[in-house]
């Protein structure tokens, strides 16, 4: 009896190798692939169980997408057609020239194989790459059977389990990616050509520049510009408030005004006078209650990027790269996930136990299993594909680069914090009525730090303690006076905030946000400035003149046009992303979505062409006039 041959294809060489190692138990044959130095074929035997049994396996990989969508040759030149024609110009899929050898390898191998098992990452992009692989394999062997392995980390037991419970490729998700690729190509090329050709003559600085447009980049830029203008246009104003202080038992208690502050001095003066006329303040509430600071939710990609760029001093793209590397090496689970709830089936205690050897948090992990363990809070998101990001195994710090160490440490500490008890404390609150006005004072004692001990990123500290006040008691406050202050502008946008805004406004998927931010930096639409110094330095995003000009120009283009949202605003892209989800859910077809979305953007395109002068004026204003002044 001959052993059936099976072809396995992963998304990256490192995954192919890791999976081969697990499936073969460490003994496999490595065969180079002609024409590509990174991709290898690993040959070994493995028993897949079920209908497959023991097979002779060739495990190989691609390197991301195999193919690109392109316009037909006659549309490729920048001056070959009016940019608007790109909304319907014919397109075709080609295998990237540098991927030809990889594609050929898959075709070749498929010839001798009964089945193809796809091991691309389990997300939308991975599903699409899976269909690209399938296409190549079918070209080599039309009758090949195609299955998919579902996995979210490269830990051994998990991989073995995935190999023995194969599923089908999800064509809906692949279609959503195909739709996105087509939309990005057409919309991106049409607007990029239009604005580059129209704007190049305005300023020397633009004559050689490609002014690229992307339907995600522009709203991302929009947020940066919006905040920048809010800071620039801000007008400080005076405000006034009432401050009440009372000394008791040698403690100075500051009572805060319920109204915080008002913008009318005369009114505040009258209010204070009425407090003083009343002479005595009355205690209307004395409250002591237990309080807690909640342990964090399980870690999602957005949170990793936000928290990471805040605490680890790395930008979000860097963090994702490092996390990706940690995943490929099998140290953490798949870092692209929207899920903030752990599945009941996952053995969290076992994962905690793996952290025992660590010199920094091993002791803490032990404490969790000695009774400190709590079931993690469950958030509201579940992408049904991946668990929250968590450590898979312990790794010695010496085996990691400096950046890897930081990200790994964050993931572990966050995970241990999730499995801990909330921090506990007690707040005491005293509320008084003084004249017609209400004031309150608050104190906090932290009683048990719990998760805070391991999650060093959160701060929660005891404040001054309040002396005793009796409910209903009357007293004459030691001091009551007016204070004044000035409103201050918001800060420039930081990267964690920007990620939060993109997420809240439905721009980009968790996986792509970091790329869009990197893009607008690379295109020189925004620059990163440091505010403050040393450990407290904050990196702020500030638009360049060109960045401001583009946003203002596109906003002006649609001014006064009802129902035509600006390209700098999130709506169009948000709409498009909702449609992608509809493709995934099977409620809309790919063609339907592509047509609808193209229609939306084509309308803006036509307006832009008609009112191109507005765009030119804005660019002139910022790049020519302001630059000169």
């Amino acid at each position, binding site marked *: 009896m001959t052993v059936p041959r099976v072809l396995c294809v992963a998304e990256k060489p490192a995954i192919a190798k890791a999976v081969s190692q697990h499936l073969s138990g460490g003994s496999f044959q490595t065969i180079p692939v002609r024409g590509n130095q990174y991709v290898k074929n690993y040959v070994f035997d493995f028993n897949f169980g079920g209908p497959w049994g023991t097979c002779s396996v060739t495990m190989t990989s691609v390197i991301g997408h195999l193919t690109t969508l392109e316009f037909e040759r006659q549309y490729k030149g920048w001056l070959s057609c009016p940019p608007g024609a790109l909304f319907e110009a014919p397109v075709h899929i080609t295998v990237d020239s540098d991927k030809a050898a990889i594609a050929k390898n898959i075709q070749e191998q498929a010839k001798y194989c009964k089945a193809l098992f796809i091991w691309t990452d389990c997300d939308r992009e991975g599903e699409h790459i899976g269909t690209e692989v399938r296409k190549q394999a079918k070209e080599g062997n039309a009758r090949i059977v195609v299955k998919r392995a579902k996995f979210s980390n490269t830990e051994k037991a998990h991989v073995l389990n995935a190999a023995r419970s194969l599923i089908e490729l999800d064509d809906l998700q692949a279609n959503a990616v195909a739709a996105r690729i087509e939309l990005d190509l057409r919309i991106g090329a049409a607007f990029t050509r239009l604005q580059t050709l129209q704007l190049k003559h305005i300023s020397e600085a633009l004559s050689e520049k490609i002014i690229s447009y992307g339907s995600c980049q522009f709203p991302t830029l929009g947020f940066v510009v*919006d*905040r920048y203008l*809010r800071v620039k246009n*801000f*007008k400080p*104003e*005076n*405000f006034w408030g009432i401050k009440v202080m009372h000394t008791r038992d040698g403690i100075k208690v500051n009572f*805060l005004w319920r*109204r*915080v502050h*008002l*913008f*009318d001095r*005369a*009114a505040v*003066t*009258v*209010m204070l*006078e*009425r407090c003083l*006329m009343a002479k005595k303040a009355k205690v209307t509430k004395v409250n002591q209650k237990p309080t807690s*600071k*909640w342990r*964090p*939710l399980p870690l999602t990609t957005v949170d990793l990027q*936000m928290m990471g760029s*805040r605490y680890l001093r790395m930008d979000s793209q860097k963090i994702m790269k490092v996390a990706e590397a940690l995943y490929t090496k099998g140290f953490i689970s798949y870092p692209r996930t929207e899920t903030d709830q752990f599945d009941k089936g996952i053995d969290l205690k076992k994962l905690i136990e793996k952290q025992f050897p660590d010199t920094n948090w091993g002791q803490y992990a032990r404490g969790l299993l000695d009774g400190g363990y709590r079931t993690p809070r469950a*958030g509201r998101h579940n992408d049904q594909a991946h668990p929250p990001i968590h450590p898979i195994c312990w790794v010695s710090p010496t085996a990691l680069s400096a950046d890897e160490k930081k990200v790994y440490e964050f993931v572990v500490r966050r995970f241990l914090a999730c499995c801990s008890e909330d921090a506990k404390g007690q707040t005491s609150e005293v509320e008084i009525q003084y004249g*017609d006005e209400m004031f*309150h004072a*608050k104190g906090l004692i932290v009683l048990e730090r719990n998760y805070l001990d391991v999650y060093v990123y959160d701060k929660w500290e005891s404040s001054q303690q309040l002396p005793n006040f009796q409910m209903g008691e009357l007293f004459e406050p030691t001091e009551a006076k007016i204070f004044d202050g000035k*409103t201050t502008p*918001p800060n420039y946008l*930081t990267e*964690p*905030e920007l990620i*939060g*805004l993109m997420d*809240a*406004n439905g721009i980009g998927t968790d996986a792509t946000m970091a790329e869009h931010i990197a893009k607008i930096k690379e295109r020189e639409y925004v620059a990163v400035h440091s505010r403050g110094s040393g450990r407290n330095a904050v990196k702020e995003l500030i638009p360049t003149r060109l960045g401001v000009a583009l946003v203002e120009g596109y906003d002006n283009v649609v001014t006064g046009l*009802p129902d035509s*949202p600006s390209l700098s*605003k*999130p*709506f169009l892209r948000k709409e498009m992303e909702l449609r992608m989800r509809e493709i995934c859910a099977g409620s809309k077809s790919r063609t339907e979505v592509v047509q609808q979305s193209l229609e939306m953007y084509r309308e803006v395109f036509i307006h832009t062409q008609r009112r191109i002068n507005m765009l030119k004026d804005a660019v002139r204003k910022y790049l020519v006039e302001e630059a000169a002044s």
Partner: protein
Amino acid sequence: MANSEEQIALQLLSTKSLPVSAAWLNNFVASTAHQRNVPLSALAQTALFRILASDFRDSLSTRTPSSLLPVDIFDPTVQERQLQGSIPVQVLDIEDIGTGLWSQVEAIERVERGEAIRGREIVRTINVDEDPEQSAEGTGGNTASAQPETGNSNGPHRLVVQDAAGTKAVAIELKRVNGIALGKLPIGAKLVLRNATVARGMVLLTPESVTLLGGKIDSLDQTWKEGRKERLVARITEMQGQQ
């Protein structure tokens, strides 16, 4: 006829504390004379409706001093005094003194850009530090300066009101009064002050001391709305000049 005029006047005075001017009422009854067999209560209802849309200086009588503001009401040297009885007034201006002028301008601009439309809202600020679920429970105190969203104002509000004789006064919403808010209380809306306290020239509004009758003066309200942003900006500019 005179009899029905008297009855309407009496009814509006007793139910709404509105001393209607005899001349105005006469006019009103004359204008409705062609409608026969209208019951008196319906007629009184129509009269009330018209009065609420009128300028009090035209429609109310100035004969009873107790329904008018003292002419020296603005006097800042008077620490405190009580206005006896019920005084009907109309709103000439309203502003939110709990919110900075500039953030009110920003809110108006958001509406101008169409961001108040459902589905077109933009989230502009997020709190990176807080657990979104826990922050609902609130850490209280210092974070109370949340941005006012379009339409609803935080207050307290500062009004300029006017009585039937044209005397104006500043009124401060000392305690929250339902119905007093930007976008809810139009210019020309009618209020009745009841035994209100005046401190340093400012009428102190509380739920006990004010009754909202509603209504508005369309022409005034329209101009007020159209000029609001400009006035806010002008005041900011003026303030910057003083600094």
